């Protein structure tokens, strides 16, 4: 077959040669006939004729033509033809100016432009010349992608792409992906805010585990013009990932390998036993008033002196009352023992019964390692090009597991193998095929329970330093009488067992293109079939743990306790693999595309049809999920000055009833390249200027609640089997499974639409050294598919989603780059800033009269309804009049003041006192958070919540990078950050016997307040009401990425065939600046789980 093709090609080639030969003879013959015509032939560097090259007489712009199918052109009636200069321009080739050396058989060779190729922009279902793009698109190339030593490709985008919000919540190997949002949020529906992911033109569910070395570029499509073609799936923007393809050349091998050291980016400090017990004591004393205030209300004539006497009364046990009645109290002896737990010479040394365990050290490692290796080969001939890549990643975990039964399996790890082969074939000159195969194999494992936030919350944060010493001589020990699991983090972790998840993802695609130039020049027909599949198996093991009870040795030796085994030994288990999840997806596409230039008119058109089915047993119900879509695009450009584009998607979704199933979503855009106007002064200051705008509609058909995608929203009333009940006497008892009404149908449901507009500006200044892009966008999402919130609960029907609700979303993006050189130093400085804000305009929610300030309507998405705080009560004087000794006079409470600073009355007409403004009437004292009686009704209750403050979605995201190279050296830095963001932190250091972070060092106390020390928390043991005090500012700036590299090219390597070798050192999340680092890492503030990590990486890249 190949042989035949080759023969065919050769025939074609000979034919072509003959044609050229004939033409040349014709030119020669016509030489003397019309002297004022200029004619010739344009070819590329390989002598192949180029069609569509614009040929212009310099200085006479209206004297122009384009080359024909055979690369031939004729400019007729040119005055003084022999003295003229011609310009030749063609997309992807260097512009050429040539003096007319001969009026006929002028042969022009155009060189392919490396710059021109870079400026091709990938768009939905195609690509465009950057200069003619009228949509809002941002992209990042392979160089930046491989710069960050992170395993997951989604973590390499932060700070690189204006308009992209990236939030990482977990650092667990294999589960560390970021959540991405394009241009903020356009809907209040959780689960339907994420962009559509397209990998090489096919919608794909998983992209996280693509090896970054395989990726050519990642683009985000932001406005309607760019996303309309994705119809009902494009409302949240689109991420396009394009993998690398082969280029015509001898095989080029690139080999890179790196080794990284990973550690937690922010690990809070934890209190040791002595400090812990002291804080608990402080809490017991301070909370005594709260517990007993009702006994001393002024009305019964009791005074502060009475209270103090009561509190400090010595009981028969020898303890003072507050000590005896406190939730926790540690005696002085106990405190001394805790203090001397590591001091064998002390008389208080009692390390096993009064331990001081630094369990952070006990269960976490300082650092772990990650390695990444990739080898790829790229090359080919005109007829066959290839890109083949093999990648391997090994991510280690930061938990210590050496005390468990299966140290290796228990450790959180992720191993990944990536294989990709992208092949391009020219079957004939007009018929090409692209075959893409991708495969990822991932093995992810670690402590069981999969959910590390559970482990973190229920085990790690429940550990305290004084419950048990943990391990003695390899034995898990429990304190005297307590076998509670939370007492010993070692035995808990060891007993969790492990699970290992193996996932295989295969993606494949065959794309055929037939160029119909013979029928209609510029027309081609394309077809594509893609098949993806995914398979997951799981295995695991359990490890029974033997706990030992320790009791004091009667001989009095504190370091030699008596062990009692508390359970029988049993065998650990290892399970065989079991299937745990799979899906497969088939996608088909057919299209016609047309691109041609007629003089100054550039015309393009695309008509595309696609359909897909996904077979996924996890879908509810387990029925294949289908999409159908049609795409239309028409582009028009005049003289590279005026650009216009029309895009439309016509999609069908299974979610809607017949008649409403298809949605037509169009978008228009236009651009004006002012700098190409003849009147635009030629200068070095402004070298390029484009203004563009777009308006259009995009849709959404998806409703996902708690990770379950709702389907067939129109289906009539459904019943489900749920629950059970038994009837019959004890001997005859029978359990019957229950059936209950499920969801009611909505026969009128249809897609939600986003009306998006965009106004953009692109400019290049100072000889192209500075380039600036600015975009302003506005989105109005209407008919949002959502649930009714105002239906009386007495209805109790499970109602379906309706087309309700409206959200507006707006903002801007600025992106600027400066590139220049000083001497031999090339450098760049880049910056981008994105701003987005949104507001819920309409939402079906129940709003109480007078409580409009609690409504979500009118607030940004995710805005929290919180009590309003106003600092702390810092002295008794704020609550009661003080007597001569400075003690509160309980019978003289201080009046509360309203917004105008006047005292006011409650509903019953009685004056309101400050002391009564505790949440739901809770007792107040100095060190409590001052909660504002927001509606001034004399009580602080549910009516005083109001919706305000920043949300977890940052309003501003920015990136700033700079770098330089000199000879073989290069260095670059990327700073990234967000602001206008807050996250709620519910961690309380005083909840039961739970771990206490260093936050506990910053509790309110009269002393600390008087000294002007930093205060971050109410008094020890005080209440932490659900108020804005804990909605912490999560702004940050991060040294996200840093890289230093050196390229060595010694001659002996060249002799070995090695073209270049580069050694580099880079890192990610290296330094973080944030206001609230005490509360955790700002990016996942308030989230419990595997913390985020920072990484140092050393790598080498060799090219053959």
């Amino acid at each position, binding site marked *: 077959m190949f042989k035949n093709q080759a023969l065919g090609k050769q025939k074609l080639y000979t034919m072509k040669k003959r044609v050229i030969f004939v033409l040349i003879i014709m030119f020669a013959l016509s030489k003397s006939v019309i002297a004022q015509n200029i004619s010739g032939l344009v070819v590329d560097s390989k002598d192949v004729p180029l069609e569509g090259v614009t040929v212009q007489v310099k200085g006479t712009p209206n004297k122009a033509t384009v080359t024909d199918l055979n690369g031939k052109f004729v400019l007729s009636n040119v005055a003084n033809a022999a003295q003229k200069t011609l310009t030749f321009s063609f997309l992807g080739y260097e512009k050429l100016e040539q003096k007319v050396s001969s009026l006929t058989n002028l042969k022009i060779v155009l060189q392919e432009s490396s710059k021109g190729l870079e400026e091709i922009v990938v768009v939905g279902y195609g690509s465009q010349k950057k200069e003619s793009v009228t949509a809002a698109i941002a992209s990042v190339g392979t160089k930046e992608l491989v710069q960050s030593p992170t395993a997951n490709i989604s973590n390499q985008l932060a700070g690189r792409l204006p308009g992209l919000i990236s939030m990482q919540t977990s650092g667990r190997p294999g589960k560390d992906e970021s959540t991405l949002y394009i241009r903020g949020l356009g809907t209040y529906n959780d689960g339907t805010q994420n962009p559509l992911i397209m990998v090489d033109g096919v919608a794909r569910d998983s992209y996280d585990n693509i090896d970054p070395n395989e990726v050519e570029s990642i683009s985000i499509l932001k406005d309607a013009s760019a996303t309309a073609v994705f119809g009902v799936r494009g409302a949240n923007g689109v991420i396009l990932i394009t993998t690398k393809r082969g280029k015509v050349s001898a095989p080029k091998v690139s080999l890179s390998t790196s080794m990284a050291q990973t550690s937690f980016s922010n690990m809070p400090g934890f209190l040791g036993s002595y400090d812990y017990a002291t804080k608990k004591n402080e809490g017991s004393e301070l909370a005594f008033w709260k517990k007993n205030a009702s006994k001393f209300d002024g009305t019964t004539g009791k005074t502060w002196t009475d209270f103090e006497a009561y509190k400090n009364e010595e009981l028969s046990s020898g303890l003072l009352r507050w000590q005896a009645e406190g939730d926790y109290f540690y005696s002085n002896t106990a405190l001394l023992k805790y203090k001397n737990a590591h001091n064998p010479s002390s008389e208080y040394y009692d390390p096993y019964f009064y331990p001081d365990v630094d369990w952070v050290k006990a269960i976490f490692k300082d650092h772990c390692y990650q390695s990444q290796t990739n080898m790829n080969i790229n090359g080919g001939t005109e007829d066959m090009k290839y890109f083949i890549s093999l990648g391997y990643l090994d991510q280690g975990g930061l938990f210590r597991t050496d005390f468990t039964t299966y140290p290796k399996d228990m450790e959180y790890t992720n191993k990944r193998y990536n294989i990709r082969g992208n092949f391009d074939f020219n079957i004939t000159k007009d018929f090409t095929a692209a075959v893409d195969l991708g495969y990822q194999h991932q093995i992810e494992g670690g402590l069981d329970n999969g959910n590390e936030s559970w482990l973190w919350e229920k085990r790690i944060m429940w550990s305290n330093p004084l419950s048990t010493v943990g391990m003695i001589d390899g034995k898990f020990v429990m304190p005297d009488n307590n076998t509670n699991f939370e007492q010993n983090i070692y035995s808990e972790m060891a007993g969790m067992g492990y699970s290992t998840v193996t996932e295989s993802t295969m993606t494949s695609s065959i794309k055929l293109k037939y160029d119909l130039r013979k029928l209609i020049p510029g027309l081609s*027909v394309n077809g594509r079939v893609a098949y993806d599949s995914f398979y997951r198996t799981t295995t695991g093991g359990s490890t029974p743990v033997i706990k030992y009870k320790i009791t004091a040795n009667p001989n009095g030796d504190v370091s030699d306790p008596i062990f009692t085994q508390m359970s029988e030994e049993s065998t650990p288990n290892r399970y065989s693999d079991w299937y745990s999840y799979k899906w497969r997806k088939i996608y088909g596409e057919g299209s016609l595309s047309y691109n041609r230039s007629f003089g100054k008119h550039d015309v393009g058109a695309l008509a595309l049809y696609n359909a897909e089915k996904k077979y996924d047993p996890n879908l509810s119900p387990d029925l294949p999920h289908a999409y159908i879509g049609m795409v239309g695009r028409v582009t028009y450009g005049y003289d590279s000055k005026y650009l216009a584009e029309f895009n439309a998607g016509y999609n069908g979704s299974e979610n809607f009833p017949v008649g409403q199933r298809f949605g037509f979503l169009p978008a228009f855009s236009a651009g004006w390249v002012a700098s190409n106007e003849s009147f635009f002064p030629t200068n070095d200051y402004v070298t390029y200027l484009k203004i563009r705008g777009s308006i259009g509609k995009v849709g959404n058909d998806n409703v996902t609640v708690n990770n379950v995608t709702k389907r067939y929203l129109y289906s009539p009333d459904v019943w489900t*089997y749920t629950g059970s009940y038994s*009837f019959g006497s004890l001997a005859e008892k029978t359990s019957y499974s229950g059936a209950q009404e499920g969801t009611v149908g909505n026969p009128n449901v249809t897609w939600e639409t986003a009306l998006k507009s965009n106004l953009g500006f692109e400019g290049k200044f100072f000889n192209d050294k500075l380039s600036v892009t600015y975009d302003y966008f506005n989105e109005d999402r209407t008919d949002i598919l959502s649930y009714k919130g105002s239906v*009386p609960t007495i209805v109790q029907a499970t109602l379906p989603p309706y087309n309700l609700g409206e959200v507006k979303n707006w903002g801007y993006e600025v992106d600027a780059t400066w590139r220049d050189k000083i001497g031999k130093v090339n450098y760049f400085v880049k910056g981008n800033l994105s701003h987005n804000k949104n507001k819920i305009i309409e939402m079906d929610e129940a709003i*109480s009269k007078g409580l409009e300030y609690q409504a979500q309507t009118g607030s940004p998405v995710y805005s929290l309804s919180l009590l309003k705080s106003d600092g702390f009560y810092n002295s008794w004087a704020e609550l009661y009049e003080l007597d001569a000794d400075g003690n509160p006079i309980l019978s003289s409470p201080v009046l509360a003041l309203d917004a105008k600073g006047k005292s006011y009355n409650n509903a019953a007409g009685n004056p309101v006192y400050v002391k009564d403004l505790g949440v739901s009437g809770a007792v107040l004292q100095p060190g409590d958070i001052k909660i504002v009686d927001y509606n001034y009704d004399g009580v602080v209750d549910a009516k005083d919540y109001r919706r305000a403050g920043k949300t977890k979605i940052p309003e501003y995201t920015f990136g700033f990078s700079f770098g330089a190279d000199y000879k073989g050296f290069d260095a670059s830095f990327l700073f990234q950050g967000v602001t206008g963001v807050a996250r709620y932190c519910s961690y309380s250091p005083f909840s039961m016997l739970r771990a206490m972070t260093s936050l506990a060092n910053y509790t309110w106390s009269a002393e600390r307040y008087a000294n002007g020390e930093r205060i971050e928390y109410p008094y020890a043991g005080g209440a932490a009401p659900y108020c804005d005090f804990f909605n912490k500012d999560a702004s940050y700036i991060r040294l996200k990425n840093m890289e230093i590299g050196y390229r060595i090219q010694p001659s002996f390597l060249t002799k070995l065939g090695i073209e270049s070798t580069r050694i580099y050192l880079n890192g990610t999340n290296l330094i973080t600046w944030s206001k609230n680092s005490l509360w955790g890492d700002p990016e996942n503030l308030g989230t419990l789980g595997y913390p985020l990590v920072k990484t140092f990486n050393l790598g080498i890249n060799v090219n053959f």
Partner: protein
Amino acid sequence: MNIKKTLRNIASVLAVFTWVFSTGCSEDFLEKPKGGDVTVDTIFNTQVQAKKAVAQMYNKCITCYNPYNYYGGRPGSITDEIYIMHTANDSWAAKVNNTTSYVVGNMSASASCDYMGWSSHWLGIRTANLVYENIGKVKDADAGYIADVKAQAIFCRAYQHYELFMYYGGIPLLNHSLSGNDLYYPRRSVAATVDTICKWCDEAAAVLPETRPSTDFGMVTKIGALALKARVLLLAASPLYNTPDSRKSEVANVRFGDDRDSVLCYPTYDKERWKRAADASLAVMNAAPAGGIGLYDTGKPETTNGAQNYSDLGDYESAWNVYANKEIILANTKTINQTDGWNNGDIWSLYMSSKLYYQDWGIKNIVPNEFIQLYEKRDGSKFTVPESGTNLPDDVMSWNLDPRFYQSIAYDGMWYCSSIGYLKYYMAGDGFAAGNLVGSDGTPNGYAVECYKFVPRVENKNANHFFWPTFRYAEFVLSYAEALNEYSGPSKEAYDALNSIRKRAGMPDKSGLDQPGFRTAVQNERTVEMAFEATRYSDLMRWLTAPTVLSQQLTSVKTTAKKAANGSMLRSWVKANCLQRVWKDKYYYVPFPSAECSKMYLGAGDWDGQNPGW
């Protein structure tokens, strides 16, 4: 190439393209494939299928207070029956039922004491209404079957309306499933609510059979419908709703003083309501024999020491331990299976029910001394818990209390069952290590008295026989005595009724009391007899005794190990404070969730329907 030809070519290519893809692009591709869901017609097709809907109706309507899921701990924890002991009293244990905030006076509209929650009642009502509306579609059923199921559905609907009424006062009344736009049903007056529930009970009682085959134990009978009616009418006759002038000041804080009060109480006191209540209870007692229902009274008032088997139990303990015994008019028969694992929450509930069963992780359900003192001494005299003692088990036995005390309440040093042996709540002392039930969530506290009613004990902690008594015969005997006394003073019938319960329990008869004296006696009897059976909350509200009882300083006893002269261990004990209860008058009517009020359908005009004070 001329333009005409180009256009013709374009047209033909487009035509081919359109043809190729229009064939594939039919709506069929997006049509829902067959399979997946069942519809209402599938369920109400055959009796076998319909039984699933019936089972779910019982599951949703007949409340199980024997905590079987995440909803709640013991229902008594918001009354004086139980004090939940858990560190700082603010942990998960006490939060489950919103007990934490309730007991200190901080109940809120968003976290009320409604055991199952506002929406759960309405889901039950919708489930029952859907069964009522659709059961007629069942193809293989005769008219008798359909009428029976319809009557059961009416009963279930009525039962959930009763629970709502008991918590909230007058409520919307729904006798059909809602759909479409007609969704606004306001609260109805107390009179309308009571009359409607009673009417439904009558409708059900007219159709329901007096007895059912033993395979159908758990399905409501005629006596069940009569019992519900008796409960509702007793509630309606009580001072909270039927307030005599002399007691109006006690509830003045929970009256609006205008028309809206009709959803809170009857406009005027009417003594005849007590007559209706007495008649309704009497109707239960009269119908009982035909249904095989009566007092479980074999003449064995006391449980044999070291009882392991049902035959060793006293009659009182048997009445709530022996499955399907004659005293049970209706029970929640959902299988309580302690081996099911975490999936359905049963394990959780067993943690909640007692420390006895799950020890470390269990909840200490302390019975406060104030409640213990409601148990009379064996001779009928009043009992007060002493300040301290030298050995708790000896002391408790020497108190010689009402046998029902020893059949419901466990204490440090009591023999429980063979696998547990003697209970060990004591704190360490005199060289003895602390007991194994000493702590709650890591904090030793030594509180030593705990409720064990509805905790597996017999047959060595066998939980299989567990059920929740929805209606137990004894309750209606006491209701009869109470209503009769209110209507016409302590008559012979009233004494007979009261003393029949006391006799079964092994307590001496009451006699020679005046009307207030009898009232106190019958209320105390009801409290003791029905202890921990979820009637206490309603009784405290309707009697208007809640302000006194629920504002007490609750105390308990704490034990510490002490070495006796002979070297054996004694459990020395002292009284200790548990909790200062706080009562607020607005508690009389549970608040509707704020979100419901904001939907403005409960009230009328500008009034959002919320109860007074919230």
